């Protein structure tokens, strides 16, 4: 069977599974809709968190980015995993004990202020919308490449699927669909990785093959790759080219941003107990680590394969995948010196081959000559990754509107069943807006993702940490901290990422920190302002101080939930 038939079968089957789960797990109350009734087993929550977290970017783009960045790719690998240590140790258990539904809930109650709650809602909406636009686009792209459907129709199909299970099932539907999506995406990522690891290094475990010797020789894969890079004028694969301080700050901003993202935090509200929240963060990281330790291996394999296949070879002798991907525009060859041979080198003047980094994962099975069903599996995996993240984000958006704004601020007397309808309605609106951005992607999507992490790092993370670990922190300190952290990060991004006040170059960066890493500084500003302002204003009321005492130990978490 050809690739396309296989893709229809596999993608069709996975979609049938998602819809089946949606029908089985309809939400009956707002508690079902917001936190899946608070009854998700920790192992399932770990898988759901992993699928929620790993987006189209993790699945499709990350290995490709590492492939081209070499050592520097580590900022994503460490940044997007290390945050889970912070979540498990500093946030998840206490927020679970607090036992409400959303991050703005915690900020609003802990800082006894609707202003604080509103600041949190605005941040949550902003972060989630920027993210979800990218996911819907990812769905469209996968459809168009593998099924030859128009990108826009791909987005409509994705909207329809997410609509069914997010609107019907809320968090409950999303959670169990995400469990299925995790299984599909990890299988789809690992199968080609294992095949290629065996081909290249004769070791079925990619993490080991990565450090092994090339099959049939005594040369280590990484030495070979460094040698190839040197020949072609690239920096050695295992050395970085980014400044040390920037690597440090970007990694930190991504870690802290991860720990501050509302759609990740909310997952820890769904488990029955505080101890479940701790362990499910551990499970989540195990499930994430399977992909995140394989991705750098895939990156190195793909890079080696690619260079060996194309470098100084005749254009006419290229395998069929080469022309297939040329058609998509993701690969382009210009024979500058008219010798019919591909010169792929670091020097832009003489380089003849331009490669889109997304190819590294999407075309990997074809480059390695794997069977057609594996290629189809990668399409289903990419869709699973994009849909699961989109659904998690849409839920945060609808909850922010129905719970944090309408229930908590405008209509406190709303009945549970009416609130549930409002939640569903906001989910519908959110799906439509996300679809709109998927079809008309703002040109700055990639830049905006950096902004989302920076803002989460500079706003939520310090406010939550101080709320738990510093009893004396009051509303004045927290609000001033969030606004100044947010403000300075936003300002820096506008100046250096969007060039709003004239063109800038990396030489202009403050302390040599790139906009991607600036969230770290925003976070420090937030902490500093919070401390100073709170020390000159009055201590929080007694009942808030008692609440802080209460969230610090696990007993009684179940009751807190049933208020």
């Amino acid at each position, binding site marked *: 069977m050809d690739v396309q038939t296989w893709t229809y079968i596999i993608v069709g089957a996975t979609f049938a599974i998602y819809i089946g789960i949606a029908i089985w797990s309809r939400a009956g109350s707002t508690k079902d809709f917001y936190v899946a009734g608070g009854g998700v087993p920790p192992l399932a929550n770990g898988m759901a968190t992993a699928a929620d977290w790993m987006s189209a970017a993790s699945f499709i783009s990350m290995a490709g980015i590492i492939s081209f960045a070499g050592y520097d790719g580590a900022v994503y*690998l460490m940044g997007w995993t290390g945050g889970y240590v912070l979540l498990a140790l500093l946030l998840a258990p206490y927020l679970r004990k607090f036992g409400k539904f959303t991050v703005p809930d915690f900020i609003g109650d802990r800082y006894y202020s609707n202003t604080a709650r509103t600041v949190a809602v605005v941040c949550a909406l902003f972060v989630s919308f920027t993210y979800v636009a990218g996911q819907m686009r990812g769905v469209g792209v996968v459809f168009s490449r593998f099924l030859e459907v128009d990108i826009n129709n791909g987005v409509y199909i994705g909207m329809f699927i997410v609509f069914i299970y997010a609107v019907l099932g809320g968090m409950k539907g999303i959670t169990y669909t995400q469990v299925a999506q995790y299984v599909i995406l990890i299988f789809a990522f690992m199968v080609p990785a294992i095949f290629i690891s065996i081909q290249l290094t004769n070791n079925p475990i990619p993490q080991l093959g990565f450090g092994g010797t090339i099959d049939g020789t005594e040369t280590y894969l990484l030495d070979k790759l460094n040698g190839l890079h040197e020949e072609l004028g690239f920096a050695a694969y295992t050395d970085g080219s980014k400044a040390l301080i920037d690597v440090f700050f970007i990694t930190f901003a991504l870690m802290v941003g991860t720990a501050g993202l509302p759609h990740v935090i909310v997952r820890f509200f769904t488990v029955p107990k505080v101890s479940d929240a701790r362990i499910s963060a551990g499970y989540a990281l195990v499930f994430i680590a399977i992909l995140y330790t394989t991705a750098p291996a895939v990156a190195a394999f793909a890079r080696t394969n690619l260079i060996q296949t194309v470098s100084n070879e005749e254009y006419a002798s290229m395998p069929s995948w080469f022309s297939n991907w040329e058609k998509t525009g993701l690969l382009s060859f210009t024979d500058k010196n008219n010798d019919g041979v591909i010169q792929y080198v670091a020097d832009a003047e003489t380089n003849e081959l331009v490669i889109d980094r997304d190819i590294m994962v999407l075309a990997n099975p074809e480059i390695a000559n794997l069977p057609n069903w594996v290629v189809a599996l990668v399409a289903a995996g990419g869709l699973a990754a994009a849909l699961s993240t989109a659904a998690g984000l849409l839920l945060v958006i609808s909850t922010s509107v129905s719970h944090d704004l309408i229930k908590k601020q405008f209509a406190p007397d709303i009945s549970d069943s009416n609130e549930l309808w409002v939640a569903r309605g906001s989910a519908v609106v959110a799906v439509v807006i996300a679809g709109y951005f998927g079809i008309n992607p703002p040109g700055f999507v990639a830049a905006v993702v950096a902004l989302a992490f920076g803002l989460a790092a500079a706003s939520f993370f310090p406010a939550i940490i101080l709320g738990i670990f510093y009893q004396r922190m009051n509303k004045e300190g927290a609000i001033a901290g969030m606004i100044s952290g947010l403000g300075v990060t936003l300002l820096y991004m506008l100046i250096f990422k969007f060039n709003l006040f004239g063109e800038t170059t990396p030489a202009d960066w403050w302390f040599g920190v790139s906009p991607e890493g600036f969230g770290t500084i925003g976070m420090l500003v937030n902490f500093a302002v919070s401390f100073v302002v709170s020390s000159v204003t009055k201590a929080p009321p007694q009942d808030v101080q008692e609440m802080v005492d209460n969230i610090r130990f696990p007993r009684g978490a179940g009751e807190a939930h049933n208020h």
Partner: protein
Amino acid sequence: MNKEKMKAYWQRNLLYLVVLLIIWFLVSYGAGILFADALNSIKIGGFPLGFWFAQQGSIYVFVILIFVYVSLMNKLDKKFDVDEK
């Protein structure tokens, strides 16, 4: 729970956090970034050690840290009788 006992429980929790987060910092920012160049002169199989920490090792250590914390805290909760029934 009385104040004294609560304080002892919290102090112990903070001690665990500080120790585990120091390790968290050392493997990622230390071995993976600040000292990566120096460690790269040591090789484990085909991996320069600093590169390995940055792209593999730190992630394994992160996983271990969470499970160590979970088991320490479950014991601590029982000892201070604040675990969930």
